[in-house]
Structure formats: C-alpha cells, structure tokens
C-alpha cells in the first residue's frame, strides 16, 4: 500500500482503478483512458496531482540558492511568473525536473516530482550551506488539482473567477475561491490550456466539488494517471524516471531551449552543460511514430540500419492521433534526424518507425 492523497476515498466513489505510482496509491483511470484523454483535448478534465511535492524557499539568499541549483536564470523570473527548470548535479545529470514559481520578492515555490520529494529536499539541504535561506517541504500539507483543457478557463468563470482575474500562461496568483485560499497557476502537463490549484488539505475536497459542479455543463471528467501519461506523451513533455534520470543531462534530453547561454552565476553542472551545448553529446532524444503496426514501450530497443542504436524511454498509443508514438535516446554517431527510418524491437521482432517532430500534437496554450 502506498501513501494516499486527501482525494483517495473520492476516487474510489468515482469508480477509479487504483495503482501504485511513485509510492502513492493513485487513480489510473475512472472510465476509460481514451475517453478521459479525449475529454481533456476537447473540453476539460480534473486531475488529482496531490502526490506532487511543494517546497517553499524563502529568505535573503533564496535567489542565490536557486541560481546555484538550476541552469535557468531565476534572476530574470518576474514576480508571480513560473519557469520550467532542471535540478542538476555537478556532472550535469538530473536529480529531477521542476517548476519554480516566484510568489514574492524573496519567496519561491518549487513543485517537485512525487517519487523525488525526499531526494530533492535532501539535495536542497545539501546545497544550502551557509546561505540565509529557509527551505520548507510542505508537501504533506498541500493538495494539488489540475484543471486542464480548452474549457478549463470557462469552468473557472463558473466557479467564480472571472477571466481578468485568471493568471496568464506560466503565472501564479494567490486568491480566494469561495473563501478557500488557493494558489492558482496557469500551468499543466497536458499540452492544453489549463490550471493547477494548490490548496491546503483541509480545503481540498470542497475545492474539488466546487470545480466539479462548475464543470458540469462542460462534461468535466475526472482524469487518471493513464490519460495524464498519454496526454503528456503527445505533448512530448518529459517524465522523470522514464525520459529523464540521473544519467541524463538536459542537453541530451533536448531541453537546451530552456537553458540560457548568458547566465552569469555558476550552477551545478554548468561546465558540463556548457561544453555539451558547444560540442554536442553522445546521445540525444528523438521522437518517432510507428509506420509498422506495433506499440513502442518504455525500455524497448531502438535499431538503425539493423544495429542497436538506442532505447525507448516513453511510448504508447496516442489517442488524439490514432497512432503509436514514442520518445527515446539514440547514439548521435548514427546521425539520426527528422524523417530517418528507425526500427523498434518489439517481442523479438523489428518494426519500422519514422523520426518526427516533437511535440506530436500541437500545444494549445493561451499565451
């Protein structure tokens, strides 16, 4: 048995199938993964993402601390803005990937992956040294709900938050929704417009019900981890533990776009990352779609011209496309590029696939 979020009993009442994920008992699906997936693409869905961790960082040296632990330039993070970051080690590889929000002049909120909460917190403490910074892991006090899909903003209006009061893309607001204090941010993990709501446990069930009721006219569905995974895969968003791990750098993972070239401060792994940006890497992330009929899955082998050339890190059926897609790492010596034909080893047989652009599905963010 894993840990349970505050919504566990609600999931059971809603008919969810429960699976263990990252040490948590979470709903994998309520009705059908495909139906849930399509609901988010076409209207809206509600996710319990309370397994994710919340770490608050504050104090005179908060900025200095963050500048040291991620390659991104937190100095440029404006008040109430969010940024996608990686937590890097000295060798450039990843402890985790994160979203950092700037809540106040000297106060930040870090959202960390469920299975990495303890590891990340330990890493933060280890990197704190003499800095004047307070690091609080408040993960157990907060629940988190994601409201995602093209109708998400309309559901918030029904719940009492007018468009003008809604945060813009990658922005967070502290507000009160029917007397419930929430952090409301316009972020997510689906490739759709949408929000994440961070709320103290004691208000969480009430907030869920308010959103559910507000979503009724848009056929808002509860969404399990199954569709969360297929949605993020179509959007080519990384999953730590699959696509990212302690043997992978952000440059290898195709996250160069997120790393500023002009950040003045030193950070963990800067030397390696700079060197990789300049000279390239031995492996690189690709996205592909199957041209033969087969489903690629995590850890299947990638072949190029009959030789083993890499490994699939995420793969599956893409409900929006009706295709089988995947991501994985290949050795750069093969010069595998867009439209290259590769093969995937599925149950001891090779099936053809083609390298395609990521994301697989257009993102529909409201920027």
């Amino acid at each position, binding site marked *: 048995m894993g840990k349970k979020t505050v919504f566990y009993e609600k999931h059971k009442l809603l008919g969810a*199938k429960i699976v263990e994920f990252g040490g948590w008992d979470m709903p*994998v*699906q309520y009705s*059908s*993964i*495909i*139906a849930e997936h399509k609901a988010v693409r076409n209207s809206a869905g509600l996710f319990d993402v309370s397994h994710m961790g919340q770490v608050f960082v504050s104090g005179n040296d908060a900025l200095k601390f963050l500048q040291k632990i991620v390659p991104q330039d937190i100095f440029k993070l404006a008040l109430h803005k969010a940024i996608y970051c990686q937590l890097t080690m000295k060798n450039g590889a990843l402890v985790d990937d994160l979203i950092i929000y700037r809540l106040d002049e000297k106060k930040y909120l870090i959202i960390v992956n469920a299975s990495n909460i303890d590891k990340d917190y330990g890493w933060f403490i280890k990197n704190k040294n003499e800095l004047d910074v307070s690091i609080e892991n408040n993960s157990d006090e907060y629940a988190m709900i994601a409201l995602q899909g093209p109708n998400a903003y309309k559901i918030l209006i029904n719940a009492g938050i007018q468009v003008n009061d809604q945060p813009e893309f990658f922005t967070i607001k502290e507000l009160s929704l029917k007397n419930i204090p929430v952090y409301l941010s316009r972020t997510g993990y689906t490739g759709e417009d949408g929000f994440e709501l961070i709320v103290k446990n004691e208000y969480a069930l009430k907030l869920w019900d308010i959103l559910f009721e507000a979503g009724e006219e848009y056929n808002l569905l509860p969404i399990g981890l*199954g569709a969360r995974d*297929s949605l993020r895969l179509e959007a080519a968003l990384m999953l730590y533990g699959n696509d990212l791990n302690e043997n992978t750098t952000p440059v290898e993972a195709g996250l160069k776009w997120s790393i500023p070239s002009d950040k003045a401060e030193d950070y963990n792994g800067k030397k390696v990352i700079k060197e990789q940006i300049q000279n390239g890497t031995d492996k690189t992330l690709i996205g592909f779609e199957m041209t033969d*009929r*087969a*489903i690629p*899955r995590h850890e299947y082998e990638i072949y190029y011209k009959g030789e083993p050339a890499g490994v699939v890190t995420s793969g*599956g*059926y893409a*409900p929006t496309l009706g295709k*089988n897609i995947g991501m994985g790492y290949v050795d750069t010596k093969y010069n595998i590029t867009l439209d290259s034909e590769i093969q995937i080893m599925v*149950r001891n047989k090779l099936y053809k696939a083609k390298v395609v652009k990521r994301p697989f599905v257009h993102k529909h963010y409201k920027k």
Partner: protein
Amino acid sequence: MMVPDGILCSKSHEYLLENQDGNYNIGLTDYAVEQLGDIVFIELPEIGTIFTKGEVFATVESVKAASEIYMPVSGKVVAVNDKLAESPEILNDSPYEDGWLIKVEAENALADSGDLLEYDDYKDEIE
C-alpha cells in the same frame, strides 16, 4: 454481459468454448478485458501454428501495457479473428462473441482442461 454456457476459464483469464463443429474458441474473459481497459492493439498468431498448453499465443495491448495471452489447452490454430486488427475495441465490447481471438483444433482438450474453471467458480476465485 451475456456469458455463454459451458465456457471454461483459466486463472490467467483466457476462456475456452467448444463450437458445434468440435473446434474451440479461445478468448479473454469479461473480467480480463475490464481490467485491461481500452484495448488498442492485438497481435494474433498465424493459422496453422501449433501451441502447447501454457504457451503464449497472442499479445493484447491496452493503452497502459502489453499483456501476453496463454493457451488454455494445446491445439492447432484453424482461424484467427482478423477483425481485431482494425478494430481491437471489439474485444472490450464483446469478449465472448465478436471478440474471440482464435479458433483451435484441440484433440486433447478434455484432458488439458482439467485445471480450468467453470465461469461461476472462476468468478469466485478472482473476487
């Protein structure tokens, strides 16, 4: 869900159903397809292949994962359900009728099926 009379089920959730011509349909129980969720791909064997009891003869993939399907008895494949290639969801909708996987000629079915359970006993077993 209408469960046909006379089916025998394995603990790994395959069913065996005798046809009027003396051959057998092999498929997945309603419980199995319910547990798998949306089925998106089914790989079936070639006609003529001979399998022994307990061998993997097919793979059924849901959105989440690939599952191997085992022969409940030994036999020779005499037909495969081609419709499932284009429309794997048939298996979710109709596991006992339109969603059968293969038909086999199984001379030793009687002896082989000793460990298979009648549907009611199977239901008791899994609950």
